[in-house]
């Protein structure tokens, strides 16, 4: 029974992987549905990572798109420089066959770049919090966007192209839905990182900061270190999402994509799912992505209906879909299946 339990989780994930990636490979899912799946994965990464700051740590970061932009630009400049013939960066440096191996490495480099920019909000967070920190995160979002707009080398406000050639090169070596594969893996890695981190005693410090920062510091939690870790993890994962987003079928990114509007979209998903609930974030990222597609026929009226939905949600269930609980708290049987070693004790709450 115990080995069954141990095997069940990887089995379910493998099954999901086979269904989504295999289905895309064999074109059971058409291009449109593949795009929806891609966005779903990217949205899950964004939501789960932002939830670490806005949910678990209780800060209000509204500049997540800025870090996404850093990851997107760093990784796409790298792939285009290395693997594509480009007017500015010259001919490809490495053969296309290398791109399959190096793509994940480049995504990680983009994520690391984004996490370093994350220090821009981690350091001020030592001194301020609440509204003031929110304004700083907003400012960082604008700084990143304006910086990109003023860099002619990477296209400035017109945007950056060439990633399509990279992806085509990859598909030319071996035809597989590479981007979907890496998005799926990136999503799992994100969930794994956040879930494990917040269940450790070190990561619990994040929640202690939310509940009472002064008490946390006086009870031997190194709050500066914990904050730095939290911001860098969260921003880095946003960078990963950006890297994946940049290599999407559009093959094109411009700074206009990574504005406060995009940040707001991620925040909406976090609050919809319930702050401090990873399963809530996943559910709401999936639901929100699907909702956007379902309401597509409504055209512009979609943006009337969705905010309205939010208003209703905030009135009747302000704590979000999951309200700080995990799926395992509501359906204890699921916990048996997914067997998180560290059961969460929120059950006792009312």
């Amino acid at each position, binding site marked *: 029974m115990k080995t069954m339990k141990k095997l069940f989780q990887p089995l379910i994930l493998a099954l999901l992987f086979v269904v989504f990636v295999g289905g895309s490979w064999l074109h059971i899912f058409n291009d449109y549905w593949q795009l929806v799946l891609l966005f779903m994965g990217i949205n899950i990464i964004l939501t789960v990572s932002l939830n670490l700051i806005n949910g678990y740590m209780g800060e209000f970061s509204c500049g997540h798109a800025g870090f996404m932009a850093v990851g997107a630009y760093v990784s796409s400049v790298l792939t285009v420089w290395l693997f594509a013939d480009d007017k500015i960066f010259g001919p490809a440096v490495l053969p296309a066959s290398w791109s399959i191996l190096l793509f994940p490495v480049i995504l990680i480099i983009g994520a690391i770049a984004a996490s370093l920019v994350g220090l821009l909000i981690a350091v001020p967070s030592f001194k301020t919090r609440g509204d003031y920190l929110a304004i700083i995160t907003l400012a960082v979002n604008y700084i990143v966007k304006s910086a990109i707009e003023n860099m002619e080398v990477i296209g400035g406000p017109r945007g950056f192209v060439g990633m399509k050639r990279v992806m085509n090169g990859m598909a030319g070596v071996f035809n597989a839905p590479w981007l979907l594969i890496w998005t799926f893996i990136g999503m799992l890695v994100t969930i794994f990182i956040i879930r494990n981190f917040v269940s*450790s005693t070190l990561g619990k410090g994040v*929640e202690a900061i939310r*509940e009472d920062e002064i*008490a946390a510091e*006086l*009870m*031997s*939690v190194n709050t500066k270190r914990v904050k730095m870790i939290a911001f860098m993890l969260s921003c880095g994962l946003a960078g990963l999402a950006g890297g994946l987003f940049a290599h999407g079928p559009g093959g094109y990114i411009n700074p206009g994509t990574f504005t406060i509007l995009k940040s707001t979209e991620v925040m909406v998903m976090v609050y919809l799912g319930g702050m401090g609930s990873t399963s809530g974030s996943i559910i709401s990222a999936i639901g929100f992505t699907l909702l956007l597609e379902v309401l597509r026929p409504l055209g512009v009226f979609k943006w009337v209906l969705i905010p309205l939905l939010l208003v209703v949600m905030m009135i009747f269930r302000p704590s979000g879909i999951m309200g700080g609980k995990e799926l395992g708290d509501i359906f204890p049987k699921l916990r048996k299946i997914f067997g998180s070693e560290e059961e969460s004790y929120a059950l*006792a709450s*009312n």
Partner: protein
Amino acid sequence: MPLLQIKHLTHFFGGLRAVYDYNLDLEKGEIVGLIGPNGAGKTTVFNLVTGAYKPSEGEVRLNGDNLVGLQPHQITTKGIARTFQTIRLWNELTVLDNIRIAHASRIKYSLPDSILHGQRYQKEEKDIKEQALKLLAVFGLEGNARELAKNLPYGAQRRIEIARALATEPQILLLDEPAAGMNPGEIGELMALIRQIREEFDLTIWLIEHQMRVIMNICERIKVVDFGETIAEGTPTEIQNNPRVVEAYLGEEAF
């Protein structure tokens, strides 16, 4: 050498002199009381010693090491833990997590290990959890380990705060009005508890309290402050008969 040595501790809030020339030698194993009227600067002394405020002047030494200028979490790690005047538990976390987090300074596993949950992580987390449950058992709270801190009654929350402070493995425990808001029965239990933990955890205790019953019963030495200055020091009996203390509490007219 005294365990804790405070010399000429002075603190200004802008132009207000909150603490002036405060001196104290705390010997190992003592229970010392700090009393004084409201606003006398008692809690400020605690805040200065634990690093929540940085003193304008003076020094604080633990076993001879200067503590002034250290971050609060570093001071706690060196061995001074405290409770708060108003309860400051992490309300939305479970009782067990409240205790677990206070073990933070003893975590030796790395950040990657906290994500990958390797062998070392598993062992350390298991130890932390066991220690936390053991500590809760001392306070008779092991049955509440999985409840949210906010759902427990007031007296239990007070005890969790003390347990949480003990989880940092202090040499000195600072209690800021531990009996506030308790009824006479609970105060009796609290006094027994303070004596018990002093023996069991080999503690030195320094407490602020307004309940004279607590102060007079358990303190071996008392210091009285008023307007930031020490006005009297001595055994409970000496303090009770000290005219300056009576004046500070009851006003000059009392004479």
